[in-house]
């Protein structure tokens, strides 16, 4: 509404109408309909969006101010008590050290994905086969992956058998100690998500016009120089997106550790801890507050990252 008045004011200030003939304004009804039509089209998606995304989030924020246990018909408003409790219990945030393993793993993951994407963007034999091979782990559902790898890491399981074929008879319990378990779990997550990063990178690389390479080759640039000066700048926005996704993914790692170890042996992540608060100890209020805090932390990290590494705005590509 402010927009219309503002525009009207501007029009009035522009002085007498110019000589260009202005088409007669459409009748009021038509104008109303015209304004309404896009909204009518948007009703369905907006309703879905509000019902399944914003209402639950609003609900969760509301619960975070109560002492609800998740099932009782009664709940009491407790103000910021849950947040105060969270911030006065530093041990609840110690689990973020576990995210370090996943963060390190995502660095490996991005490097691997970038390497494969670059190689497969050139003409390589069996190119499509390798593309499929790299992407397929991402298509398998996380629960299945967790179960497969549970057998993989078992005592005398797949990993041990493969190692013994190579002559390495290890007696190592892969999920037995905190360090080993976390490294193993982070490895599974690398296996799973490399494909996704790879496809994103490959798409970005292929959108770079081919004549650039040609020109570079004429100038005598080798493959590394092509990567350094053509590919790397070309995929920067996608790279930034991937890094943000990886960081938020590391902070909120859940599926694989939850199914494989249930958070035992020092593999508990912040989300597993939140789930346990809500569903084991029936502190739905506190758990909701923890979820809100995680959201804020991820937003803060993303903001910080955007501050430190700003996008090149002049290119007009801005994915995040």
């Amino acid at each position, binding site marked *: 509404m402010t*927009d219309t008045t503002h525009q009207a004011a501007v029009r009035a200030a522009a002085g007498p109408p110019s000589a260009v003939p202005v088409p007669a304004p459409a009748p009021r009804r038509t104008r109303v309909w015209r304004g309404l039509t896009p909204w009518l089209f948007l009703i369905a998606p907006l309703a879905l969006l509000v019902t399944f995304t914003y209402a639950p989030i609003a609900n969760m924020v509301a619960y975070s101010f109560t002492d609800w246990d998740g099932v*009782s*018909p009664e709940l009491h408003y407790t103000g910021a008590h849950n947040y105060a409790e969270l911030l006065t219990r530093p041990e609840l945030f110690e689990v973020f050290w576990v995210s370090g393993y996943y963060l390190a793993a995502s660095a490996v993951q991005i490097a691997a994905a970038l390497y494969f994407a670059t190689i497969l963007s050139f003409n390589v034999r069996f190119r499509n086969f390798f593309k499929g091979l790299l992407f397929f782990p991402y298509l398998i559902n996380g629960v299945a992956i967790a179960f497969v790898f549970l057998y993989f890491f078992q005592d005398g399981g797949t990993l041990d058998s493969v190692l013994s074929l190579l002559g390495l008879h290890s007696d190592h319990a892969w999920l037995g100690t*905190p360090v080993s378990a976390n490294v193993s779990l982070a490895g599974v997550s690398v296996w799973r998500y490399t494909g996704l990063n790879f496809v994103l990178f490959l798409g970005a690389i292929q959108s770079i016009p081919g004549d650039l390479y040609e020109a570079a080759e004429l100038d005598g640039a080798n493959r590394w120089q092509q990567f350094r000066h053509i590919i790397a700048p070309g995929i920067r926005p996608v790279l930034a997106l991937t890094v943000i996704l990886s960081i938020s993914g590391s902070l909120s790692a859940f599926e694989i550790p939850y199914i494989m170890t249930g958070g035992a042996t020092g593999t508990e992540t912040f989300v597993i801890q939140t789930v346990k608060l809500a*569903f084991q100890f029936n502190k739905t209020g506190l758990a909701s507050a923890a979820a809100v805090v995680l959201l804020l932390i991820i937003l803060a990290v993303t903001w910080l990252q955007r501050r430190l590494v700003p996008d090149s705005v002049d290119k007009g590509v801005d994915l995040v």
Partner: protein
Amino acid sequence: MNRRTVLALAAGTALLLAGCTGTGGTSKGAEAPASDDPSKVSGTIKVLTQRTDLVQDGTMKKYAAEFNKTYPKVKVEFEALTDYEADVKIRMNTKDYGDVLLIPAVIKKNDYPKFFASLGTQAERSKKYRFTDFTTVDGKVYGQSPIGVSPGFVYNKKVWREAGVSKWPTTPAEFLSDLKAIKSKTDATPYYTNFAAQWPLTSWTYVNGSPSCDTQATTKLAEGDPWAMGSDLRVGDTLLYDIVHQGLAEKDPATTNWELSKPQLAKGKIATQWLGTWAIIQFQDAARKAGVSPDDIGFMPFPAQAGGRFCAVVSPDYSQAVNINSQHKEAARAWIDWFTDKSGYDKDNLAISPLKSAPLPSVLKPYEDQGVKFIEVSDAKGAQVKEIDDQSEVGIYKPDYRQDLVDLARGARKGSLDDFLAGLGKKWTEAQKTVGS
């Protein structure tokens, strides 16, 4: 409308919607009366159960057909939930949680009258049934468990015999030396923690009551430090620690497999597991499937004696209750009564009958021979214990702290047992102060 107004409106709508969801009705104090004339009871009732296996193989249908011989006008439908606790917890927020359901552990005892219809007074029901005080609020009973269970060690008799052990150990120390004998004289893994399946570790909490043979054991949890020197939980947790610490458990606990552990115990690859009477039938089945004798599956009480006798705690399984919103409370009540008294469900599961007058099941014959004393631990303070448990985040009914204990025992976690148990005790007693009685 500019963008900000739209956003504000959307947020407002979302908040409004949020206000509408959540709490259901708060009716309270209904009764589910028993009918005198079975032919008059009618209606379709839905029974929620966690026994997916029994629904799938048609056993529940057979019970229903048997039930219909007495109550021809009642139609019974079953709904089996794989993840019973989690699924029912969410449905408890609505009115649609079946006509007959198993009381989930998450419901606070004081909230029973808001969710379930009463089955009668405790004074009256306790004459006939066991476990009434587990579901009693203000003198009224809200649920009835169809079976009773008693915790204990499931063991392979053959393996124990081969190790030269002929009688049940009477102290934790003796139990440990028996396990050592098994380790040195047989190929079996002396003890299997089932670490990865989590809940088998939780069952160590049901040691409570056995070593002291005290019917007030639960009350003591509510009032003191559960890990004080000589207390039941400390005795149990120390035994578990020692088993793992002395290398008497499986090599890699992180990748254990519950389903596989059953045939392995039957075949003598595993010697012992701490579970309960309910598990015996499953291990016997596993033995039959593996082609070995089910008679080799043995069951023994916790290795501690009070006054020269072993002590076995009998406690209820999930209790069946009538939904307070049910349209057919009489029919629902009829099902619970029939299922508890006449279905034979307890015998089919080799379990202890919920009827006080019934004899012990045959699998507990050795218990009778050894003169094991059966006690029921009072649950008068059970609700408070649960509340302290949640508040302190110790989780004696959850697997986490025992997983930590096992990690500690096998050196995957730093610290000493004394410090670990003292830490639990501190958290527990601090929560005790904040939880109102």
